[in-house]
């Protein structure tokens, strides 16, 4: 039974934005009325939102969405709760240490915000398929790894149906992506294929701190060099005794971490270097990033504010990147991150190509080169994790025999994508979706 029906004034505040028009609302905004509570219905019944990550940002995002009227929320996170999370991941308590973040977070929200239905998934985002992702109106990500961000970005871009340059808006699912580090953070809105995507900006990410191998090996100067030495050389040095199997090194295991610390400390002492502490050892080994509740709150709220506006049309929108820095005063900077020309993910259009499965690769390539849509000169083809034909010297000989095989023999299935690289292309690659015609 939906008990929230008997609390007519619960959503008074959101209600004002949804029921009243205003000068900055979207031109398409049609305010709800008593008889046509369309937007509210959408928020509460029709729309499903996906939250990726139930950590520092994730906890905040879940709370914010629940208190923005959203009812149907999925959350994916494969991690378990650690004590060091408790200073900011406020849906967890000491008794929850060791349990699944997604499950505990969902339970807390469902219990605190009556009527809200958060469904947890303790798995990797890669474990879900296209159909799963298609059901969402918006995806909000509070991730801490480039790899995961890249994946979900690619996934959502791939769901966009783009027929020869015409994007079908119904297949565009926004990705609202937040990230924080100490007193800094950023929130961005990605409309796959329309605005810049995550891959467009991957080059601009600050590179991870790495030290030269020879410095680590022979001319250490900093305590960090000594810690890296323990990790790089100490672990694989059979002459150094370890109370564990080096192949099973786990930087979450205090026993292992302590060994790294002691080893690094000894090396530092041998070179008169000071500063190796257990804390620094953990920081370097695990690449620990300082984190506090306030920054997470700011970025998560900015993200959810965008989700709310997107789903209700009740106001303007972030276009498309907001940076926040709280080190010196409060500094927020908002700008439009432009699409990168030839971006490997969103800059590559997918074009459909009609062909019979019994066509040989050689003939297929001839037809490709004739097609005026593309301007191929020396195309190399790859599909389903397999090289079909490579023009370059490295793999040409190995792939030449494929020319006489049919597409079917090469295990190219209907609807499969073939990625084509060609020095003549402006972007990284071109993607062709194969559309099989019935053989006569």
């Amino acid at each position, binding site marked *: 039974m939906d008990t929230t029906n008997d609390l007519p004034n619960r959503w*008074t505040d*959101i209600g*004002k934005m949804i029921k009243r028009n205003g000068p900055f609302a979207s031109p398409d905004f049609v305010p709800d009325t008593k008889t046509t509570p369309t937007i509210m219905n959408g928020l509460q019944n029709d729309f499903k939102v996906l939250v990726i990550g139930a950590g520092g940002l994730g906890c905040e995002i879940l709370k914010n969405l629940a*208190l923005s009227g959203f009812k149907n929320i999925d959350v994916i996170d494969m991690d378990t709760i650690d004590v060091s999370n408790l200073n900011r991941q406020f849906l967890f308590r000491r008794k929850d240490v060791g349990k699944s973040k997604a499950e505990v977070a969902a339970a807390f929200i469902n219990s605190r915000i009556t009527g809200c239905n958060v469904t947890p998934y303790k798995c990797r985002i890669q474990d879900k398929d296209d159909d799963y992702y298609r059901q969402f109106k918006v995806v909000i990500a509070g991730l801490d790894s480039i790899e995961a961000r890249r994946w979900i970005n690619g996934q959502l871009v791939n769901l966009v149906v783009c027929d020869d340059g015409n994007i079908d808006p119904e297949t565009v699912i926004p990705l609202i992506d937040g990230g924080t580090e100490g007193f800094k953070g950023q929130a961005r809105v990605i409309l796959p294929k329309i605005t810049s995507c995550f891959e467009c900006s991957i080059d601009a990410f600050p590179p991870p701190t790495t030290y030269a191998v020879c410095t680590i090996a022979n001319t250490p100067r900093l305590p960090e060099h000594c810690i890296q030495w323990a990790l790089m050389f100490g672990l694989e040095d059979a002459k150094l005794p370890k109370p564990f199997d080096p192949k099973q090194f786990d930087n979450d295991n205090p026993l292992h971490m302590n060994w790294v610390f002691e080893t690094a400390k000894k090396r530092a002492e041998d070179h008169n270097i000071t500063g190796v502490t257990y804390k620094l050892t953990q*920081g370097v080994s695990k690449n620990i990033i300082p984190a506090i509740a306030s920054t997470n709150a*700011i970025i*998560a709220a*900015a993200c959810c504010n965008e989700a709310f506006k997107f789903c209700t049309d009740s106001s303007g929108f972030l276009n498309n990147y907001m940076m926040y820095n*709280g*080190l010196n005063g409060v500094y927020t900077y908002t700008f439009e991150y432009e699409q990168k020309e030839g971006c490997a993910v969103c800059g590559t259009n997918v074009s459909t190509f009609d062909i019979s499965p019994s066509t040989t690769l050689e003939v297929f390539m001839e037809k490709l080169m004739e097609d005026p849509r593309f301007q191929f000169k020396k195309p190399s083809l790859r599909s389903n994790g397999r090289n079909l034909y490579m023009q370059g010297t490295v793999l040409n000989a190995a792939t030449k025999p494929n020319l006489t095989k049919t597409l079917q023999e090469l295990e190219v299935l209907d609807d499969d994508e073939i990625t084509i690289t060609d020095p003549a292309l402006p972007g990284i690659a071109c993607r062709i979706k194969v559309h099989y015609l019935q053989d006569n």
Partner: protein
Amino acid sequence: MSQTTGTDTEKYDRQLRLWGEEGQARLEKSSICLLNGTATGAETLKNLVLPGIGAFTIVDNQKVAESDLGNNFFVERQSLGQNRSKVVCELLRELNDRVKGSSVEEDPIHLINTNISFFKDFNLVIANRIPEEPLLTLSQYLYENNIALVVVNSYGFIGYLRLSVPEHQVIESKPDTPMDDLRISEPFKELEDYANSINLESLNSQQHSHIAYVLLLIKFFNAWKSTHGGKLPETRPEKEEFKKFFISKSRNYKDELNFNEGVTNLLKAFQPSRVPSDVDQILKDPKTSELTENSDDFWVLAAALKSFVEEHKKLPLHGNVPDMTADTLGFIKLQNIYQDKANEDLSDLTGRVESILSKIGKDTIPQEYIKKFCKNARFLHLARYRSLNEERTQPRTQVITGELEQPDNLMVFYIVLRAVDKFFTLYNRYPGFNDEDIDSDQSLLKNIVNQLLSELQIPTDLVKDDYVNEFTRYGASELHNIASLMGGITSQEIIKLITHQYIPLNNTYIFNGINSTGANWKL
């Protein structure tokens, strides 16, 4: 568990990496008062309870209403009808058992008007949705008693934050990219001696390529000076020439990383060490000359620093050497030379501190504090905030007008927010709160906006009707996302105020949730 401070180092690890155990200790001693347990207030406190402030008190006489369930995370279904301060307090305390929390079931306005000394023992007061008059009364009292006032409001898609404290001292401002203090162009004796003791010609190629660039530059600066009348390169062409000269001294510029580093850091190396203007202001402040036994340690130290600079014409040496290409032994030796000099400067400063203390009859200052002050001499920061009362009686009209004239400015929101407060004072309700009043409230609000602008002698066409209408539309609604965002920003500034680390906002910030932009000003 920390041996020294007793704090929970495991749970707080991620934040200790930002403000250390000392900052944490300050947080854990703090006592904060929140007026009104609204969504904004609760979210602000959440981000203070989680990292472990000492204690908080919520003053609120409202009962938990249905609408609270729609925007406030710290109320529950079953708490409908109960006093809001009590409910929010309980659910916040649940976040961190090390934090003390209490609730006062009273109208904050009544408290301000009848028992303002209630606030005297707090370090900081957060005011949310307090009308103009009592707010100014509170502001006056807090300012006189050196208690920080933080005003935060969420109104529709707009957020507002204002900080005010008479004086805020920061030693560890922890700038993002601090300048090195290497004294390359004016090396102290030990550094110069070390540089001179190195005979580059006698070194093999491995050794040659591992002499720290600092030493290389000092050596070649000296060589240059000897053929240029004892002067360093000053003009642009001279500096270019030196660069060529320096590169020519490399045996294999492509591979000698140390020479490359020398070139990269050349421009910085030319700069003599200066006293930054921020620090200079502090040293010139009258408080450094009007010392009594009741003076803050900060001012005693500032006075000692002033005397140090008067004699040495420089700030004390920082002592840190950033990593650079060098062999281990050489680098450690270099580090030690800088460290020794820094210690020498510290002793010098300490001596001055002690002599001042004995003159004014004040107790000793812990050596750790002096050391911290000394090491951070270049990064000292002092802020004096205008009170809210000053903001009203002596408005910074130029700043306001200047901003209003810019396209897409956020100052318009500041003006309308001020008008909204005035509206409440006049009519005891917020504009657009009731559906039936929207139209009439729009014109009432517009009149107040125009009146306010006239008083400030600002052309009324600088605030378009759209903004007035938008605020009437909001009808004082409090959206959770905006409340949470402002709660985040506010709590972060409060942490900076309490830990005295990093530099807090001075003094107004507005967040525009319509397009996710923000702006700050000193009003």
